[in-house]
C-alpha cells in the first residue's frame, strides 16, 4: 500500500516536471500582448496564420497592464509585439525605451496621424468615442439622447453614468483629452467640468468598455465609450442608443509596435506588415469589429459610416497628449476622482 502510494506520487511529480519543461511552440510562432479583447484579436491572428503560416501566441491585457508588463520585462522581453490599444499607450512606451522602430512597406501611404515619424508605432485603426445611453432610462426620465457634453451634467443622470478609470484605461485618457480639446485646452475649465460630471458618475470602470453592459442592462443610464465597444453592445441586442456631442468628441488611433529586444523580430515585422494593410483591415467588417480602418484604401463599412454621419469628431493631438499624459492623469486622480 505504501509502495503503491509512493509510486503514484513519483508518477505525479514526474508528470509535473515533464509538463514544466514542455513549451507550446509550433514551428513558427510569434508572441504578442494584445490590448484588443480576445474576441477581436483571435480572428485577426487566425487570419494572419492562414495568410502567412505564422502562429501567434498572445495574452490579453488592458493598455495600462500591458505597458507596465512590458516595462517590467524590459531586460528580458517575453513577447515581440504590442498589438492594438490606444496609441497614447505606445507613445508613453517610447519614452521608456521599450520599442524598436520599424517602417513597414506601406508606411508612406498612411496619413501622418496614423504613424510615428520614426516608426516606433503604426496605426491599424481609428476609434472614436461616443455617448451611449439606455433607451428605457431615457424614456423614464423623459430625456433625449445627450447631444452635448453639458447634457450629461443634468441632475437626471445622477449616479447613473459609467465611464472608464484613467488609472487603467486608455478610453478614459482619450476622453479626458477630448474634454480638454473641447474647452480649447483650458485645463482649469476642463477639470471644472469633469469635477461637475463626477457628481453623476456611478462608478469609474477598470476597462474602457466596462460600463457598456451595465448601460445595456439599465444598471446605468449612460456612458462614454469607444465606438467599438458601444456598437458591440447594440449589436448584441441591448436597448441602447448612440449619440454625439455637438461640441465634438475625440478619436484615438489604435496602434501596433515592435518591442526592443524581441526574440522573433522578423516574424513581428511580418505581423506589422500585414496588419497595417487592407489585408487585415478589410476583415473588420467581416468580423463585425467596429473600428475605422487606418489604411486609406479600406472603406468604412456602410452601417458604421451611417452611425458616424453628422458627428463632429476630431483627432487627439497624440504628441501633446503623450507629453502631458502623466501630469493630466495625476491631476484627474487628485481632483476629479475623490
Amino acid at each position, binding site marked *: 500500500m505504501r509502495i503503491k502510494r509512493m509510486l503514484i506520487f513519483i508518477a505525479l511529480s514526474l508528470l509535473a516536471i515533464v509538463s514544466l519543461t514542455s513549451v507550446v511552440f509550433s514551428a513558427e510562432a510569434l508572441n504578442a500582448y494584445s490590448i484588443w479583447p480576445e474576441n477581436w484579436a483571435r480572428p485577426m491572428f487566425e487570419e494572419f496564420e492562414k495568410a502567412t503560416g505564422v502562429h501567434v501566441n498572445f495574452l490579453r491585457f488592458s493598455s495600462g497592464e500591458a505597458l507596465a508588463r512590458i516595462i517590467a520585462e524590459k531586460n528580458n522581453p517575453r513577447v515581440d509585439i504590442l498589438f492594438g490599444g490606444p496609441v497614447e499607450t505606445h507613445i508613453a512606451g517610447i519614452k521608456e525605451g521599450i520599442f524598436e522602430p520599424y517602417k513597414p512597406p506601406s508606411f508612406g501611404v498612411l496619413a501622418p496621424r496614423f504613424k510615428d515619424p520614426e516608426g516606433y508605432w503604426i496605426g491599424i485603426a481609428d476609434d472614436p468615442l461616443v455617448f451611449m445611453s439606455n433607451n428605457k432610462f431615457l424614456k423614464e426620465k423623459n430625456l433625449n439622447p445627450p447631444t452635448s457634453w453639458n447634457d450629461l451634467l443634468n441632475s437626471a443622470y445622477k449616479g447613473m453614468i459609467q465611464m472608464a478609470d484613467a488609472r*487603467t484605461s486608455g478610453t478614459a485618457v482619450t476622453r479626458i483629452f477630448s474634454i480638454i480639446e473641447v474647452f480649447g485646452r483650458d485645463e482649469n475649465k476642463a477639470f471644472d467640468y469633469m469635477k461637475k460630471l463626477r457628481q453623476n458618475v456611478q462608478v469609474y470602470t477598470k476597462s474602457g468598455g466596462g460600463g457598456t453592459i451595465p448601460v445595456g442592462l439599465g444598471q446605468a443610464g449612460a456612458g462614454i465609450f469607444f465606438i467599438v465597444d458601444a456598437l458591440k453592445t447594440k449589436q448584441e441586442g441591448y436597448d441602447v442608443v448612440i449619440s454625439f456631442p455637438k461640441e465634438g468628441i475625440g478619436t484615438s488611433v489604435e496602434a501596433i509596435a515592435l518591442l526592443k529586444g524581441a526574440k522573433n523580430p522578423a516574424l513581428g515585422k511580418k505581423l506589422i506588415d500585414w496588419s497595417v494593410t487592407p489585408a487585415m483591415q478589410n476583415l473588420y467588417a467581416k468580423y463585425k469589429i467596429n473600428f475605422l480602418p487606418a489604411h486609406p484604401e479600406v472603406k468604412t463599412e456602410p452601417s458604421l459610416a451611417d452611425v458616424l454621419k453628422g458627428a463632429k469628431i476630431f483627432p487627439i493631438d497624440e504628441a501633446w497628449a503623450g507629453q502631458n499624459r502623466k501630469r493630466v492623469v495625476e491631476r484627474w486622480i487628485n481632483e476629479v476622482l475623490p
Partner: protein
Amino acid sequence: MSAPTVELNPSNRLRNLLRDPLLLISLIILWGLLTLFILLPLIGLLMRTFEEGGRFTLSNIINIVGDPNQRQALWNSLLLGCLVGLCGTGLGFLFAYTAVRTNLSKAWNFFLDASIILPLISPPFTTAIAMIFSFGPRGLITYDLLGIKNFTVYGLHSTLFSETITYFPIAYLTLKAIIAGIDPNIEDMAFSLGSSRWRVFRTVTLPLTVPGLANSFLLLFAASLADFATPLILAGNSFPVLPTQAYLQITGLFDIKGGAVLSFVLLVPAFLVFLLQRFWVSRKYYVTISGKVGAKTQIKSVPSWTKYFLLGLCLFISAFILYFYVLLFYASIVQAFGANFQLTWKHYRVVFTEGLKAIRDTLIIAGAGMPLGGIYSVILGYLVCKKVFFSRQAMEIVSMINYALPGTIVGIAYLLFFNEPPILLTGTAIIIIACYVFRYGPTGIRTTVAILQQIDPSIEEASFSLGAGSATTFSRITLPLILPAFFAGLGVVFIRSMTAISATIFLISINWTLITVRILEKMTELELGVAAAFSILVVFIVFIVIMAISLFLRLFRQPGAPEMASILGG
C-alpha cells in the same frame, strides 16, 4: 516524564547539527529554497522601495504617505479589515456554536458544511458578481424584488458584506475546533453551582473561546487586508483600498515602483498581525495523543427554542450563500443575464475551447504544486517541531513570511526578482508553482506542527527503544500519524492554486495562464456569462478534489490518530 522546560546549550545545538548529516543536508536545502523564494525577492522589493536613482531614500514612502488619496486607502483598508474581522468572527461563531452545541442531525450538519465550503473553494469575484446582479441598480433583489431605486451597490457596505461572506468560513473552522474542544465537564460544573444557561455561556463558554476569537479576528483581518479582487469590483471609487491601489498603480499607471511602495505600506499592518498571532494568541487548545486514550463525554445541548432560533439564523444565511451560487450558475447558462434569458450552453463551449489552455495550465500547476506543497510542509513542520538545531526559530518565521504578506506584494516581488539573470523564471510554470508552494505551504506546516505537538514524544522514543532508526521511526510511526496534515497541505495548496489571483496575476505569461486570470479578463471584457461559467467550473473541480481527499483521508485514517477538524481552516 513530561517535556522538560529545559534547553540545550547553544554549543550543543550546533554540535547536534554536525553530528547528524541527514539533518544538515535537509537544512541546507531548505534554507536555500527559503532564501531564494522568500527572502531574496522580498529584499529586492524593499530595496526598490527605498531606492531612487541608485541611492537610499525615504522619498518614495514619504510621497505615498503624503498623498491624501493613499492615506485614505490605508485608512480604508484598516477599517475594512477590522469590520470584516468582527463581522466574520461573529458570523463564524454563530455557525460554529450551532454546529457543535445544538446536536444537529447529520443532514443539517451536511447542509451547513456545504454552504460553508462554497465560499472557500470559489475563485475570487464570485460573491462580488452575484452582489452586482442582486443589488446593483437593476439588481434582482433591489430593483425587481423590492423596487428600490438609487441604491448604490458600490462602496464599503457591499465590500464588507461580500468579504464577510467570503471569509467567515475561516472563522467558522477555527472556532468549531475550539468550541468542540471545550470540556463539557467545565460547563457542567458551572451548572452545578447554580448558574443559568445564559450565565454559563457568558462567563464560562465565551471566555474559553477568547483565544479562538482573537485568532480568527486576526486571520480575517489579514485576509481582508490582502484581498484586491473583491474591492476591485465592489468598492467603487469612493472607497479605495491599498491592495487594489497597488494593483492599479502598476497596471494602470505603469508605475511599478509606486506599486511596490504601496505594497510595502500594506506590509506594516500585515506584519503586526503576524506578530500578534505568533506571540500573543499562541495559546491553543490541545487534544492529547499520549499513547493513552480516554473515554469521550457527552455534549450538553442548548434548550430547543434556542436551538431552532440559531439553526434558523444559520439556515437563512446558508440559503443566501447558496442563492448566490445558483444565481451564478443561472448567469452561466443564459445568453446575457439581465437582457436575454434564453438558455444556452455557449458560455461553457467557450470555456472548453478558448479556455482549455487555461484549464490545462491551472490543473497542471495545481497538480504539481500539491505534492510539492504537501512534502515541503510536512518536512519543514517536522524539522521545526521535533529537531533542535541552530536557526530553528528563524526558519519557522521565515517560512511564514510569504503566507503573511498580501498576495500583491509577493507577486510584484517575484516579478521583479525573477525577471533578471541570474535567476530567470518569469514565463515559466515554476515561478507560479513556487509562489503557491511557499505562500500556502504554511497551512500544512502549521497543521503538521499542531499534530506533532499532540503526539507524545515518548511514542517516538518507544520506537527507538525497540531498535528502529530515525528513518524507520519517521516513516512507520510519525508519518502515518501526521498523514492528515499532509493531506491538509495538499488540499490547501490545490484549492488556493485553483482560486488565487492576487499574487499570480503578475506571474502569468504566454506559456502559462490561469483560470482565475481568465475570469478577470472575461469580466473586464464584460463576457459575464463566460466568467460565471469559468467560476462554476472551478467550484466544481475543487469540490470534487476536496471530496476525494476527504474520502481518501477517511479510508486511510488510522484509528486513534488525531481528528482532523478541518483541512481548510487557516
